């Protein structure tokens, strides 16, 4: 599958210390890319991801940054460019949750999720635009969520951010298409990660009923969609959202 080969490419994956982000970072490295592993607070976990990448014979660097802060994202992209010499692929994956019913949700809970999950994606796109425009090539892949299209009680902030990511993806795709940069999104369903481990057993049971394929997804099953979008195989695709959710949204 030469079309899926990423040898000689470099990538930056945000929120790559655990879960879906880690699986994405490792999948890109398996396909041949060098990877900058971003984390906000979990340095030890991020180091584990980097170790796995190095074990695959690829270069990895650790880059700490709160993606919600534009200056920190800019500095992280600079560090990546200095280490790798170029940046071909950006995966905006970092995300947090602060679940609550709307009537109980505090303003800070709403703002925190929007800042990381939506503004963080904007900051990322903006930070890589200049180097990617100069290269006349680039791949930006944003992680949305099935709840961004379906809605979810108790997650108004998260849903608003994830729906926003889909619109942001389309606008960026239109702005950057003439420069050889594609921008797409992947919308995972319920995936086995630390984030979904926190859900109550009743909630999990309820969710399984709504998944046609009858099980939760694995981080690697999201990573393979991201790998596709990062590779030459997806050269003719931009502004799209791939739904990888066991059939929840169709």
């Amino acid at each position: 599958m030469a079309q899926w080969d990423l040898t000689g490419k470099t990538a930056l994956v945000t929120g790559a210390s655990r879960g879906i982000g880690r699986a994405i970072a490792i999948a890109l490295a398996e396909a041949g890319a060098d990877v900058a592993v971003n984390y906000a607070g979990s340095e030890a976990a991020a180091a584990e991801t980097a170790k796995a990448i190095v074990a695959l014979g690829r270069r990895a660097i650790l880059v700490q940054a709160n993606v919600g802060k534009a200056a920190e994202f800019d500095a992280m992209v600079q560090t990546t460019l200095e280490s790798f010499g170029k940046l071909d692929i950006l995966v905006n994956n970092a995300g947090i949750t602060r679940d609550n019913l709307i009537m109980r949700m505090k303003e800070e809970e709403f703002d925190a999720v929007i800042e990381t999950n939506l503004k963080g994606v904007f900051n990322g796109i903006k930070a890589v635009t200049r180097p990617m425009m100069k290269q006349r090539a680039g791949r930006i892949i944003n992680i949305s969520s099935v709840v961004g299209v379906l809605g979810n009680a108790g997650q108004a902030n998260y849903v608003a951010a994830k729906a926003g990511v889909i619109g942001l993806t389309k606008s960026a795709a239109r702005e950057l298409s003439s420069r050889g940069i594609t921008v797409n999104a992947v919308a995972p369903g319920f995936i086995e990660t630390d984030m979904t481990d926190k859900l109550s057993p009743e909630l999990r049971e309820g969710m399984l009923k709504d998944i046609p394929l009858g099980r939760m997804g694995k981080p690697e099953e999201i990573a393979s969609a991201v790998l596709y979008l990062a590779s030459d195989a997806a050269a003719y695709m931009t502004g799209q959202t791939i739904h990888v959710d066991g059939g929840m949204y169709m």
Partner: protein
Amino acid sequence: MSDVYDRVKRIVVERLGVEEAEVTNEANFKDDLGADSLDVVELVMELEDEFDLEISDEDAEKITTVGEVVNYIQSHA
């Protein structure tokens, strides 16, 4: 003076694919040289590299003609 002008002219010709004769002092990037807004952003990026200076977004938005670019570079380089 002429040095800056020549270097700007060369970059504009390369980037926008226009004839040298079209790149006059008065030429407007969008109206006369057919640049779209992204072309202008790219042009600014290239000029920053060429002349080793930073053109702020606020200043970049005010620059509309070749002559304005040359003046800007001469007063900031």
